[in-house]
Structure formats: C-alpha cells, structure tokens
C-alpha cells in the first residue's frame, strides 16, 4: 500500500512524461478493446440476423432402415408427437431437363413437402408454395425461383405457366426469391431450381421411392436446435433398434459456423496486431524506467545507505512500472468505452450495437500487467544491483 502511494507520487512528479509514456499502452489497449469489441458486436448482430432466417434446421440421413423404412406418414406423426419439432420435410433431388416453349435448361428438382418452406426460410414472391393436398394428390405443380423464371420463361410473373420437366407437364403455382448465397447454388451454379411435391418426384425420378432417405427438421419456437436434435435422436434410436450408426443427424448451420470462424480469425488477427502495439508500449515503459533509474541513482544510493535491501529497491521500481502500465490500461479502456458509446450513437437505429466486451477488457488488463512486470523487471533489476557507494557519489 505504501509502495503503491510512493509509485503514484513519483509518477505524479512528472505528469507530462508519464502521460507520454503511457500513450503507447493507451493506444495499444484502445486498439485491442475497440477492434475486438467491434468485430464481436458486428458478428453477433449478423449472426442474430442469420439465425433469425431459419438456420435452426437439422438434417437427418437414414443409412440403414432395418427393414422399417421411413414414410411420409411417419414424418407427420413425429411432428405431432415431439413438441420441440415444428416441421419435418423430406427431400430428394433429381436432375432433369426443363422446357418452356423453345427454351430449355438443366434443372435440379427438389421433391419435398410444404414444411420445407418454413424450415429453409424461403421467401415467396407470388403465388403459393406446395400444399398438403398437392402431396396427397401427387399434383403436377411446381414452385420455381425468380432467376429460373426469368431464365426459362423470360419473366418472373409466371404463375399459371406450364413447364415441362423430363416431358411431364408441371404448372407453376409460385415463385420464390432466389437464394443468392445458398450453398447449393455455389456448387450447382447455373442450374435452375424447381420444388415439386415429394410424391410427384417419385413418379418423375426412378431414384426416388416412397422410402424417405433424408429429411429436414425445424425446431419449434421456444426450443433450441439442440432440443429438437435430442428428441429426434431418441425417437430414431427407438425406431432403429438403438443403433446409432443407422442414421445421422447434423445441424446445418453452415452460415453461422462460417461467420463465427471468420470472426474468430478476425479477432485473433486484430488482437494480435493490437498486442504488438502493446508490446511497443511496453518497450516505451522500459525506456522511460531506465531513464528514471539513471536520474534517481542518487536516491537509490541514499535508500540503500539507510538500509533498503536489493529486494526493496527492485519492488519499488517494479511497482512503479506496473502502476504506469495499469494507469495506461485503465485510461485506454475508458477511452475505448467512450469510442464505442459514440460508435453506438452513430449507428443507432440500425440493428448494430457496440458493447465493451468483458473478456477483452480482462484480457487487456492481464496483458498490461504482464507487460509492466516483464518490461519493468530489467530497469528495476538495474536499480537494485547498484552499489551503494557508486550510487551515492553519482553526480556529486
């Protein structure tokens, strides 16, 4: 406590120099705290948005049905049975050739049920999506996306037009928004997309039967994906003789995963850069502490003559360096807080908010402490090692 007071006093004796010395630490801490807080806040805003767009879906793939194939009726029963599950949509795909008038192109056709719309967060532009009656009647109806409509038919407002898929005639009943960044479009770029009833796909494609191999699950409101995953796993284990290898459940949260890994990389990168500036700040502290030790050689001599041990002198100068660092750190955090407040005020009204991240604050405090100790040790040790007579006779 006493040494802390002493340290504050010797720092206070030369305020301008102390502030200039701390500047390195202040800027380093600011860089660290502000950048990491910005990245984290921005990421959490985007991730919130992404997850609100229905990314809370699970994919189930059955690899071995043990002679108990999954049918459409099973899916309907499961939705009713499990509270945590709001929707289940089977899906199967087929590649076909689509024709309209003289235009043609290769299509990826998804055979599914109405639940698919909700689970995948599709956006309807006009008309309607598939209905349960379409499934029951194996209706020849399809829903296409806007891009497909423009490419094949020539205009988007094409509800009621009839297109041909591998020679079978399908009526367009709805047009949905094209998924710009969908993972599938990345791989299958250029192909056109149509959604048709699962039961219709059975007739269209030889590869698809009444047995369902893969389906999507959407979690109900008030439940998280993990709840649905747990309940479904339980249910499927019962059905498939407790064989975990018969099926697989994976949460398709690719966007969130990608976002979080990008944000982690960014945080580490920016944090690393900020850490470098903190180290530079630490070198500044070491430099000024060395000057201080030289300036106060006589004081060190006096202290030693009247009985200060090496340890006492070492501690005195070490505490001074650490206090200098921690003051800089506190100032840096305070300024960062101000900057983030101003930033939040500027983007107020948008979905963005900038918050001081607790972890990065704790991290920078720890880091500053370590820097204070590491860079204070050499000057403090230099002071402690001085011989009392040499120090006493220094400069007079």
């Amino acid at each position, binding site marked *: 406590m006493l040494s802390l007071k002493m340290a504050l*006093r010797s720092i206070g004796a030369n305020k301008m120099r102390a502030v200039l010395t701390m500047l390195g630490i202040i800027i380093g801490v600011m860089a660290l705290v502000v950048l990491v807080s910005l990245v984290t806040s921005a990421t959490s805003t985007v991730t919130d948005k992404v997850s609100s767009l229905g990314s809370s879906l699970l994919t189930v793939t059955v690899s071995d049905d043990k002679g108990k194939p999954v049918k459409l009726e099973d899916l309907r029963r499961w939705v009713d049975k499990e509270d945590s599950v709001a929707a289940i949509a089977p899906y199967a795909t087929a590649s076909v050739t689509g024709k309209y008038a003289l235009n043609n192109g290769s299509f990826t056709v998804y055979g599914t049920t109405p639940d698919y719309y909700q689970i995948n967060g599709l956006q309807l532009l006009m008309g309607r999506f598939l209905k349960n009656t379409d499934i029951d009647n194996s209706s020849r109806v399809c829903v296409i996306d806007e891009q497909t409509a423009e490419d094949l038919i020539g205009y988007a407002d094409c509800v009621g037009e009839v297109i041909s898929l591998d020679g079978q005639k399908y009526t367009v009943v709805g047009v949905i928004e094209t998924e710009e960044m969908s993972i599938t479009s990345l791989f299958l770029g250029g192909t056109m997309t149509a959604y048709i009833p699962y039961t219709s796909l059975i007739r269209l494609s030889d590869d698809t039967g009444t047995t369902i191999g893969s389906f999507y699950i959407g979690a109900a409101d008030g439940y998280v994906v993990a709840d649905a995953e747990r309940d479904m796993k339980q249910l499927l284990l019962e059905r498939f003789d407790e064989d975990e290898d018969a099926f697989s459940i994976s949460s398709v949260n690719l966007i969130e995963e990608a976002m979080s890994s990008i944000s982690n990389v960014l945080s580490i990168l920016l944090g690393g850069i900020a850490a470098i500036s903190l180290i530079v700040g630490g070198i500044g502290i070491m430099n000024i502490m060395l000057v201080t030790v030289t300036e106060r050689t006589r004081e060190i001599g*006096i*202290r030693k*003559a009247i*009985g*200060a*041990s090496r340890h006492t002198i070492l501690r005195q100068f070490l505490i001074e360096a650490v206090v200098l660092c921690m003051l800089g750190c506190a100032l840096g955090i305070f300024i960062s807080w101000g900057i983030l407040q101003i930033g939040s005020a500027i983007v107020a009204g948008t979905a963005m908010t900038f918050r001081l991240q607790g972890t990065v604050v704790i991290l920078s405090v720890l880091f500053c402490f370590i820097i204070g100790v590491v860079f204070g040790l050499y000057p403090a040790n230099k002071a402690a090692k001085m011989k*009392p*007579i040499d120090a006493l006779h220094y400069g007079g």
Partner: protein
Amino acid sequence: MIELRDVSKIYQIGDERVRALDHVNLHVHPHEFVSVIGPSGSGKSTLMNIIGCLDVADAGQYLLDGMPIEAYSENDLAQVRNKKIGFVFQSFNLIPKLSAEENVELPLIYQGVKRGERQARVKEALERVGLENRAKHLPTELSGGQQQRVAIARALVTRPSLILADEPTGNLDSHTSQEIMDMFKEMHEQGNTIVLITHDNDIAKQARRVIHILDGRLTEVNL
C-alpha cells in the same frame, strides 16, 4: 564497538593501483566521540565506507559489535546499515520529493516498524533536532542547516549503535556548522557513539579523540 584489524583496500585506477587503506588498525569503544581528519585523497572516505558497511575491505578483518562484516551478503549489509548505523553526509542526501518527516520515516519503513510507532518516533527525532514545526516541508524549502538537522534526525530515529558523519559541516557556514557540532556533542553526551570524518582541524578538535589519516595510514593524536 568498532574493531579494524589490518584492514587494506586497494583501488585499481587505470594501470595504477592505489592503496587507499594500508593495514589499518582502529578500535573505537562504545560512547566514544572520535574524529578522523585527513586531507582529500588520504583514504578517509574509503575508511568511512568500510566502517559504514557501504563497502567491504580487500584484506583484514572488521568487527562491528563483535560481528565480522566480511562474511555478510549485500542484503545482510543493508540490514546492518539500517539497524546499527546512522549516516550524516556532507551533502545531506535527503530524498528531494519526500517531506522532512517522510525522509526521517524511511529507515523505519525499511525496518518494518508499524505505522503508529513510526509516527511517534519520527516526531520524537524531529523534536530532538528542533524541527517539529518543519515536518511537512520538502528539503528544498529548508535551509542547509535545517536539511542537515533532518539528516541527523534520520540517523537518530533508528537508535543506531554508531553515528557516522562524513564532513557534516562541509556545506554549511561557520555559524551553522557550530550549531551542528553542538548537536553532535549533545548526542555524544546522551550516550551515542560518533565517528566524524573531516578535513577541518577546528571541527576535528571538538571530538574527544582525534585520529589523523594520511596515505591510508592512521596516527593517533593526543590533545
């Protein structure tokens, strides 16, 4: 109290070896007031450094209160200086940013004395040198004589076995010098052991026992 047996100290300055102390023998009894007088370069500062445990001899033996100093580590020496020796220097050597009372308090802090006792002893020491109403002043706000009195208070506050004064009047006018010397005499009468090092005959004469030093050798002077 102090016993130097055949103590030598040699400095290497460039190519030249300077024998600052040449087989010195000295015995100072408790409650003695001894002055050591010699011109500059005679080795009196080296003698003072060795007696004050600021430096160790190259050869010979130094017993302080019967304990051999040679065997001590640097930290042990710091403790000996703290507890047994009170220094008074020519240039006062107060710490400029500490007030008078804080300067006096410092050796007690290093001893680990508790706050309450520290304050009482600082007050007592400052009263003894007549500076109780200057306690809060910084050294720069005090006259030379007052600064030296603060230094004396700092030397007294630990109740040391030995007070070691190195030219304590060197930076003071003759009137103030006499004041300080009277203070030393008073301290002596109160039972303190004092070793005073000086080049000034008038000052040296005021001690009970005067020792001459020249070229690192001592000669006793009987007045």
